[in-house]
C-alpha cells in the first residue's frame, strides 16, 4: 500500500495549479463562459503545450505514460478553478475508449491528436427517455456494407458544441434495454445527417441535443467489438466517474475554504459569524464531508484497475459520497454566505451549481446506491 504521489505527479499538480491561478481567474471565467463560444480556446492550446492533455495517455501514442492518477490530479485542480474545457469528454472519456477499445489504427489516428490538443470529443450516450441506464438505447446502428447507418437522438451531450467528433453509443442488435447488442462508434460531427442544437448549461458548460438521421459511419470507426460494447462503456464511465469525483473534491475544497474565511470576517450582532457554534459545527461537517470525498476518490482511483464488479462498486460508492457531500457542501456554503451567496457575481453559487450538476452526471446518488446494493 502506498498513498504518495510521485514527483512527476506533484510537478503536474503544481503546473496545472499555477497555470490556472495565473490565467483562469474567476473574473476571466465569467467573461468567456458568457461569450458566444462559451470558452477561450487559447486555454486548450496552453493545456496541450503544458502536456496536460497527454499526461494520462500511453507513451506509444505520444502520451506521457500516466494514467488515472494523473487524470485525477488534473481534474481536482480543474474543479478548483471551475474549468469548463472539455478534458473529461476528450481525454478521460474519448481517450479512455480509444485506449481500452480502439483498434490499432484508431489509436494511431486519435491518441496523439488528443494529446496534442488537435481534436475535441464529446460523449453522446444519454437519451431523452433513458435516464442513467447506459443500456437503455433507442439509437440504432445498422451494418450496411463497410458502414454502419446511425439513426436516433442523444440528449444533453456535454461539450458537443466544441467537439469535432462524437463518441456515440448505439444499438446494433437486441431490444431497448438489453445488455447485449450495444456498440460504440467515433463519429465525425460534420458527417451528413448529424444535426445539433446547442445551448448553455446551468453550470456554464455547453451542450447539444444531437440527432442522427441515416448517418453513415465507416465500420473502421467502431470502438471495441460490435454488440459487446457495454462492458467497455461501463469501464470508461467508471473512469469518468473517478475523474468527476476528483473535480468535485476540488470544487468542494474551494467552498469549504471560502466559507470558513468568509465566516471569519463577516460580522453579525457584533461578532464574526464564524464564532457562532452552530455555524462552526456546520463548517466542520462540510470539512468532514469534503475529507470523506477525498478519501473515496482516492479509493475509486486506485480501484479502477480491479475486476469489473469491484471497480463498479468503488465507482458507485464514490459517486454516492460525492453526490451527498457536494449537495451538503454547496447548500451550506450558500446558506452561510447568506444573500451574497445567492448572487451571480460571487463564485460560491457557481461551484454550488457545478456540484449540483455533477450529482446528475453519469447517474445520481439514488442510481448509484442501487447499483452498489445490486453488486453487494
Amino acid at each position: 500500500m502506498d498513498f504518495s504521489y510521485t514527483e512527476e505527479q506533484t510537478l503536474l499538480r503544481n503546473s496545472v495549479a499555477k497555470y490556472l491561478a495565473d490565467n483562469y481567474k474567476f473574473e476571466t471565467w465569467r467573461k468567456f463562459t458568457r461569450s458566444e463560444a462559451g470558452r477561450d480556446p487559447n486555454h486548450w492550446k496552453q493545456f496541450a503545450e503544458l502536456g496536460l492533455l497527454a499526461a494520462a495517455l500511453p507513451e506509444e501514442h505520444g502520451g506521457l505514460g500516466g494514467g488515472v492518477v494523473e487524470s485525477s490530479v488534473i481534474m481536482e485542480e480543474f474543479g478548483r478553478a471551475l474549468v469548463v474545457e472539455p478534458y473529461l469528454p476528450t481525454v478521460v472519456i474519448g481517450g479512455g475508449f480509444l485506449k481500452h477499445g480502439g483498434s490499432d489504427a484508431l489509436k494511431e489516428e486519435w491518441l496523439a491528436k488528443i494529446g496534442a490538443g488537435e481534436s475535441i470529443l464529446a460523449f453522446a450516450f444519454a437519451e431523452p427517455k433513458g435516464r442513467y441506464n447506459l443500456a437503455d438505447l433507442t439509437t440504432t446502428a445498422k451494418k450496411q456494407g463497410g458502414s454502419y447507418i446511425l439513426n436516433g437522438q442523444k440528449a444533453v451531450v456535454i461539450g458537443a458544441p466544441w467537439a469535432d467528433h462524437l463518441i456515440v453509443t448505439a444499438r446494433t442488435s437486441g431490444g431497448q434495454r438489453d445488455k447485449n447488442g450495444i456498440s460504440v462508434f467515433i463519429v465525425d460531427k460534420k458527417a451528413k445527417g448529424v444535426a445539433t442544437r446547442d445551448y448553455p448549461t446551468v453550470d456554464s458548460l455547453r451542450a447539444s441535443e444531437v440527432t442522427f438521421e441515416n448517418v453513415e459511419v465507416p465500420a473502421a470507426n467502431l470502438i471495441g467489438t460490435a454488440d459487446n460494447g457495454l462492458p467497455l462503456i461501463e469501464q470508461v464511465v467508471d473512469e469518468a466517474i473517478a475523474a468527476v469525483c476528483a473535480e468535485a473534491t476540488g470544487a468542494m475544497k474551494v467552498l469549504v475554504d471560502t466559507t470558513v474565511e468568509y465566516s471569519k470576517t463577516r460580522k453579525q450582532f457584533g461578532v464574526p459569524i464564524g464564532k457562532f457554534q452552530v455555524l462552526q459545527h456546520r463548517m466542520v461537517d462540510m470539512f468532514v464531508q469534503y475529507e470523506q470525498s477525498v478519501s473515496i476518490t482516492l479509493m475509486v482511483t486506485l480501484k479502477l484497475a480491479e475486476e469489473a464488479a469491484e471497480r463498479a462498486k468503488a465507482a458507485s460508492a464514490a459517486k454516492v459520497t460525492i453526490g451527498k457531500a457536494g449537495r451538503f457542501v454547496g447548500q451550506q456554503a450558500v446558506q452561510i454566505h447568506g444573500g451574497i451567496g445567492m448572487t451571480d457575481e460571487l463564485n460560491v453559487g457557481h461551484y454550488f451549481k457545478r456540484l449540483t450538476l455533477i450529482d446528475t452526471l453519469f447517474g445520481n446518488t439514488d442510481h448509484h446506491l442501487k447499483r452498489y446494493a445490486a453488486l453487494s
Partner: protein
Amino acid sequence: MDLTFSPEEEAFRQEVRAFIADAKTKLPKGIGAAESADRSKEDYLAWHKLLYRKGWVAPLWPKQYGGTGWNVTQRYIFNEETAAADMPTTLPFGLNMVAPVIFTYGNEEQKKKYLPRILSGEDWWCQGYSEPGSGSDLASLRTRAVREGDHYIVNGQKTWTTLAQFADMIFCLVRTDPNVKQQEGITFLLIDMKTPGITVKPIIVLDGAHEVNEVFFDNVKVPVANRVGDENKGWTYAKFLLVNERSGIAGVARSKKAVERLKEIAGAETLDGSPLIGDEDFARKVADLEIDLAALEFTELRTLAQEARGQMAGPESSILKIRGTEIQQRITELTVEAIGYFAYPNERALGHNDNVGPDYALGQAGHYFNMRKTSIYGGSNEIQRNIIAKAVLGL
C-alpha cells in the same frame, strides 16, 4: 373536535371556485403560480386587480379598510383553492407588510392616502429593510435620516430589495439616532421611489433572474409626514411586520400543489421504461415529503385555531418558517432529481425560454437554486431557531 366544514363554509368554497374559474379566462396566458422570472409589471398585477374588483384582495385587513372580514377557516379555504388552481399570488410588500403597519401605527392621513392605493394596486411597494452587511442582524442598519425642517434627508443603501424596479413606493428603516442602542434609533419611513436621489441597481441571482436590487439613497428628501409613528420607535413597527411576515410563510397550500406537480413530473419521467414515480426510492422520498407536509399543515391549522380563539401566534410560528421553507426546498430538489439530465439546459440564457427537454423541465434547476434563498430571507432559519430557543424553550 372534527375536520368537517359547515355548509356555509362549503358554499364559500364553491364561490371561490366559481370566481377562480372565471378569473382563469381573464388572466394573461401562462400566469400561474409557478415562478416565471420574466413576468411584467402588468402580469404581476392582473390577478391582484381581479381580486380587488371582487373585494377579495386583502384577507388580512380589517373590514373597515377594505379587508374581506373572513374568518380563519375562510382564509384557509381561499388559500387552498387558489393554490390548487395554480393561481398567482399577490405581492406581499404592500398588502401584507406595509399595510398592517399603516393601519396599526399610521395616522389617519396616511391610512387615507395609502391604503386605497395598495388595495387597488395603484401603488407598488417594495421593502427597504436589508442593507449590505446587516443580514439577519437587521437592527445594525446604517442608512441615515437627518431631520431638516419638514423633511428627513436620507443617505445610504438598501439591498435584496425585491422587484424594486417596478416600485412606486418603498418602506424603509432608517437610522435617526446613531448614539443610542441599535434598536432605539430607528425610524420607519414611507418613501416615494420617484424622489430625486434614488437609484435602483439590479442584482442577478443564481437562476439568472433580475428579482432583487440594490437601492441607493443620495440626499433623498422625505417629508416628515411620511414617517409612521414616532421618530426612533421604528423597531417596534419593524418587528410587528416581521412577525406578520412569518405567519404566512409556511406556504402549505402552495407546497401541496407543488408536490402534485412533482408527482406529475415523476409520472412522466421514466426509469428503465417505467414511470419514475413507481420507483421505490423515489416514491419513498415523495411519501416522506408528503408526510412532513401533512404534519406541517396540521401545525398551521393548530396555529390558526389558536388565532381563531383570539390568541396571537407566538414565537412557535418560527416552526412554520423553518419547516415550510425546508419543505419548499426539498420539493425543488426532488424536481431536479426527477428531470435527470434535463436539469442541465439553461434555456434562459438563450433568450426566450425555448425548451430543450420536456416542458416541465424548463427552469427547474434555476428554481432549485433560487429557492435556497428561502432559508436565508425573512430571518434565516438559524435565527428562527435562536428565537425558539430563547422565547419558547427559555434557553
